[in-house]
Structures are given as C-alpha cells and as structure tokens.
C-alpha cells in the first residue's frame, strides 16, 4: 500500500503506454490522477472532479510480484451533504478507471475535513467563468451569521461588471446561488463560497 497525497507531478505519462520496464511509482500515481482528471461533475460538466477538489487521496495496491497495480482506492469528499451528484461521481470514477483496465477499484467517501471551495483549482475557476457561472470569490466577504448582511460583491461572468444583485441565496443546485447583473441584465449562477 502506498499513499499519494498530491498530483502536482511534472511527468505526463501516456495512459496507454506499454513498456517492458516496470513503470515507476510516480508513473503509476500520475496515471491514475490523469484518468481522474477526465471524470466530470455531472451538474457542472466543465469541471473535473480534480478541479472541484473532491478527490482527497489515491491509495494503490501494488502486487509484490512485478509491481502491477492490483487495485486502487479513491478517497473522495462530498461537496454538500445531500448532493445527489456524489453517487454518480463514484460510479463514473469506477467506469473511467475500468476503461483503462483498473478493475478492483473502491471509492471511499470521507467527511472530514469538510470540503471547502478553497480546494477548487484556479483552472477550475477559469473554466467555470467561461461556462457562464461566476466562480467562488477567493475569500467570502460575507461569511458570518449576521442577518440582512450586504450581499457579496460578485463579478458578472459575462460582462465583468461588479454591479450585480443577489436574487436568491439558493440556486439551481446546492452549491450555487442566483444573481443578476445590473449592467447587462443577465441572470447568472454564482458558485457560492462554502
């Protein structure tokens, strides 16, 4: 058993590459992470589950003979407690890995530490904006229990104006709230800080 805590690996191995030399540990790790990059959030299909920051760890089971990967445990954390996308994400992880020959895959959900939008990648935020969803602010300006607090200043993903107005703290999915731009008048979703 070995644990991999990050995927910030410079190597970009080819997933289907075959070699007579047993692949290095780094290669095997990076390969799994690269496959996980192809699994998307079913609700926000421009985001991979790595962009979302819900994959916490990958644990490989490596055969003591020949170093083949015998199985993998993917440890994920749910975004919101009731998010119905999580079951689908688990299934899609297994499917994506099965396509590349990993049969013995277990997906484990871990609740602590609780997911936060701070784990969303910068690339993910760019993709969200291009998709028309305002990405979470770096720091939530309004993050307390004060009532009738001024709404967070959210930038319109279409015209970049900050003259926007919150229509509802709750939106089309648990992770979003509903805004409207006062300048271009377009309503848009804001991926709220959590």
């Amino acid at each position, binding site marked *: 058993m070995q644990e991999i805590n990050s995927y910030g690996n410079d190597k970009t191995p080819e997933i289907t590459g075959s070699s007579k030399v047993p692949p290095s540990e780094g290669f095997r790790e990076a390969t799994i992470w690269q496959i996980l990059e192809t699994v998307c959030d079913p609700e926000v299909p421009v985001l991979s589950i790595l962009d979302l920051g819900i994959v916490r760890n990958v644990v490989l089971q490596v055969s003591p003979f020949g170093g083949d990967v015998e199985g993998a445990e993917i440890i994920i954390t749910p975004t919101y407690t009731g998010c119905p996308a999580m079951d689908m994400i688990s299934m899609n992880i297994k499917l994506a890995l099965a396509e590349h020959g990993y049969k013995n895959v277990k997906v484990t959900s871990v609740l*602590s530490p609780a997911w936060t939008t701070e784990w969303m990648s910068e690339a993910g935020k760019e993709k969200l904006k291009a998709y028309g969803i305002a990405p979470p602010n770096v720091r939530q300006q309004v993050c307390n229990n004060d009532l009738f607090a001024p709404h967070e200043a959210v930038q319109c993903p279409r015209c970049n104006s900050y003259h926007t107005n919150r229509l509802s703290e*709750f939106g089309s999915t648990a992770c979003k709230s509903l805004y409207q731009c006062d300048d271009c008048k377009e309503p848009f979703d804001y991926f709220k800080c959590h």
Partner: protein
Amino acid sequence: MEEFNTSNIKETNEESGSSKVLPSGEDLGGAFLLHLADTTLILSQRNSEWCGHGPVLEQDIALTNISLDLLGQSRNFYQYAAAIINLSTNQPTNPVTEDSLAYLRKEREFKNLLLAEQPNGDWGQTILRQYFFSQYQYLLFEQLQNSSDEQLAAITAKALKEIKYHLRWSSEWVIRLGDGTAESHHRMLHAIDELWRYTGEMFLPADYEKETGINFSFLKDAWMKKVKAIFEQATLSIPENVFMQTGGKTGIHTEHMGYLLAELQYVQRAYPNSEW
C-alpha cells in the same frame, strides 16, 4: 490516515458549552443516531411538500435546497446508525441499511422531534418551524462537532456549514414576516400558537441522550436567548406558561405522523425491496 485526523475540530469549545468529551458511537448505541436521522428525514419530507408550491420561485428553490441538505444529513446518520446496529447484533442475518431504517420502521419506532412532523400550514408556519429547528440544530451541532466519536464529529461539522445558511435564511424570514404587514404579523402569531408547545421537547433529554455529554441546560439558555433576540426584531414575543408537548423522542407522535409515513414509505411498502 494522518491527513484526515480531526484533532483541529475536537478542541474544547467553551463557547459551545461542551466541556465534557462525548462518548464514542458504540457507547451511544443506535438510538441517539436514529433520533438525529429521523428528525432530519421527517423535516426534509415536510419541507419537500412545498416543492412546486412556494410563494415565489426563488423561495421554493430555497426551501427545497434546505430539504436536500437535511436529507443528506439524515442519510449520513442512518448509514452510521446502521453500521453500529449491525455491529451490536453480531453478524445479523438481515443487516439493517439506511433504506430499511427509513422505509420499514413503524411510527412508534421513529424518534424524531414532534416539531419536525407538524404540518406545513402556511408559509409563516413553515418558516417558523424551520427557524426553531435550525436555531436548535446549530447550537446542538456546535457541541456535537467536538464529540470524541470521529464520525459523529465529521457529520455534524460538515452539516454546520449548511445549517448556517438555513439559520440565516429562516431568521431573516421570521423578521420579515413578523415585522411586515398586519396580515403577515397575524400569521406569525398563529404560527407561534401552533408550534411553541413542541419546542420544550428539544431540551428534555431522552434516556439515550443522557450519556451523550450534551449540555442541555446550556443549549436551552442559548436557544432562548437567540430566539428572544430574533423575536424582538420581528416585533413578536415569546409566549409564557405554555404546556409543552413531549413524546417524539420516544416514539409517541402527534396524529400527523402516520399520514406522513404513509406517503414517505408507500412505494417501499407496496413494492417491497424495489430499488432505484
């Protein structure tokens, strides 16, 4: 695994009033977890009845979002309760699951708060029920997130982030309606009449809560103080000398519960073992 240790959230939080370390899940037994699971499930079911019927689209969505959060919380509690119940029955032939606990228990086996099962009434009544509960749940989970039981601490710490939204949303609505028009104020008075009698139960520990380490007197004082503050802003007042109805925590429910379960459990009862 080091990465997932919860030591950072287990420090004793004096503000939450929890100075005692809560016992582990196995000590708790399933009953306390079922109480938490049942209350969140039943309130989720009630709120979801508003789906498609909210006064405006945005608030319809808000309430169904809250409903979904509560359902997610109840699933976490049921899954954990099932694991503990199965463990304590030593290799059961028919292990319980989150589904069997939700769909196949009878009214008397449900341990939810009476508040959660009360009918929706009008928008004001639904709002007030949600506010009373969110205020209580927020303060309770602030204590439970310090539990020595890692899974209970993890579930409640995660839920707290969502409850903050529920609490803010429902508090604002209580103020908006109470301090709104003569009609909305009148409706809130009616809602208080209907619901206040079910709030006392929250602070009376059932047998299975006595060893949990929850500081109930602190919980009650903190809740009353918060409700008073919100009611003041809403130009409402706390009723005095009201008889407090109890029983939900031990399975003695109001007349509404059977109908709610009939709807909730219908498909599973009519088509046993059906799955999604």
